[in-house]
């Protein structure tokens, strides 16, 4: 990039635009920050257009329109059109709540490439309980409409202890709805999911059983449906290569304009994350303290620093290291080489004990009232 000296920095490819924190659903594993309700300002239509243009110029090509629930933004078709005109592949990541056929057609005309609909479970009762809103039948209807209007249809189901036993029914539902892609996303324990972990984390046996069922299904539908399986990293030996490496590929913009190297990075201390109201995307990506913080390998401590796998997983996830060990520079404790690996074992045992306890505490749902307890 002309004007920027560090030629080791790769340009962004993925822009995740969290258009709003507003959402009619209350999923207890939401990846939005616990204190989301304190961020009241949202970027304007023109701000978002400027962000899309600047990031596209650097080389971003995949655009995720997310939230919160992005359908709550009245300017969504206008933003989609601007993004599509710039050449982005535009992904709408929605609960389906607030979607109708007229909107689906309007977005198609604006150039939207794909709609990902999330469903919380394979039964109405459990879906509506987890979502905190009666939404199951409507979501299924939206999935049909997405197909009818020629979009690739991606069904996303977040997997946790309350719905993991429904794996066979979830797969049957995806087939019945004609999903082109099925994302089986084992819960990642950040934000609200971290708070509710004792109630959400399945046992290793539950994971193994569900994974075997999903694997057999994957072979059965090969050529018709693609399965994205997001691994449950608590039961892995090595951490995930989080974000494909810090500041290499992914750029998230939060509703208030704060630019983040990953959508959870807002929780990390001392990064001084920049804001698109103050700086250009090029300055943010190449020059800001936050985006350079964990680039490369110099920041690493042992055992990562001398590890021959560091170029494969980049030491894992910084947010997980911070949440579980208190130091964001540490090796992701998921790694069996981590000296703090016992925190994972403790988390697994604690969840198991909670599942067996007679007086299970209730889930903390993601809503503004509950959010206010965190700031």
């Amino acid at each position: 990039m002309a004007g920027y000296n560090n030629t080791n920095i790769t340009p962004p490819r993925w822009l995740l635009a969290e258009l709003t924190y507003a959402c009619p659903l209350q999923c207890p594993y939401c990846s939005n920050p616990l204190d989301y309700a304190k961020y009241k300002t949202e970027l304007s239509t023109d701000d978002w257009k400027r962000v899309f243009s600047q990031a596209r110029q650097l080389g971003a090509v995949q655009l995720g329109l997310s939230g919160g629930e992005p359908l709550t933004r009245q300017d969504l078709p206008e933003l989609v059109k601007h993004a599509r005109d710039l050449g982005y592949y535009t992904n709408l990541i929605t609960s389906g709540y607030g979607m109708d056929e007229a909107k689906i057609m309007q977005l198609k005309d604006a150039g939207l490439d794909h709609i990902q609909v999330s469903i919380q479970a394979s039964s109405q009762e459990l879906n509506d309980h987890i979502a905190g809103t009666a939404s199951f039948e409507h979501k299924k209807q939206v999935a049909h409409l997405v197909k009818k209007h020629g979009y690739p249809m991606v069904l996303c189901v977040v997997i946790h202890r309350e719905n993991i036993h429904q794996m066979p029914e979830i797969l049957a539902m995806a087939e019945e709805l004609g999903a082109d892609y099925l994302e089986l996303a084992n819960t990642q324990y950040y934000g609200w999911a971290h708070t509710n972990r004792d109630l959400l984390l399945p046992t290793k046996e539950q994971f193994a059983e569900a994974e075997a069922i999903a694997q057999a299904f994957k072979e059965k539908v090969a050529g018709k449906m693609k399965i994205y399986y997001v691994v449950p990293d608590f039961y892995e030996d090595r951490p995930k290569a989080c974000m494909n490496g810090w500041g290499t590929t992914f750029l998230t913009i939060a509703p208030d304009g704060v630019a983040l190297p990953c959508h959870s990075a807002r929780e990390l201390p001392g990064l001084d994350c920049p804001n698109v109201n103050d700086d250009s995307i090029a300055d943010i990506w190449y020059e800001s303290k936050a985006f350079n913080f964990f680039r490369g390998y110099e920041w690493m401590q042992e055992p990562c620093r001398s590890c021959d796998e560091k170029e494969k997983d980049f030491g894992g996830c910084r947010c997980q290291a911070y949440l579980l060990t208190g130091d964001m520079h540490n090796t992701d404790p998921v790694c069996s080489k981590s000296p703090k690996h016992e925190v994972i074992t403790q988390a697994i045992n604690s969840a198991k004990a909670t599942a067996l306890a007679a007086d299970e505490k209730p889930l903390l749902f993601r809503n503004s009232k509950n959010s206010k307890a965190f700031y």
Partner: protein
Amino acid sequence: MTINPDQPISFSRLHRLQWEEAQQKHVILYPEGMVELNQSSAAILQMCDGTRKLAEIVSDLENQFAATGLHNDISAFLEVALSNGWIQQH
């Protein structure tokens, strides 16, 4: 999966083939993913417009690149493309 020589080949409506200026290459875009293409792969896929059959794609590319004997390479790549869902026949 094998290519049916009697049916025209079209690019998938669930994917998008696009030139990326920043990367100086063609890419295939699909939900939350991207495949980077080399020059010959991109040239083959650009021929998949729903009118040409395998033999026509081969002869047109042989003309375009002033080459002969491309049939096996093109056919092998199209089979990969078909199994990845990038192209379709029907």
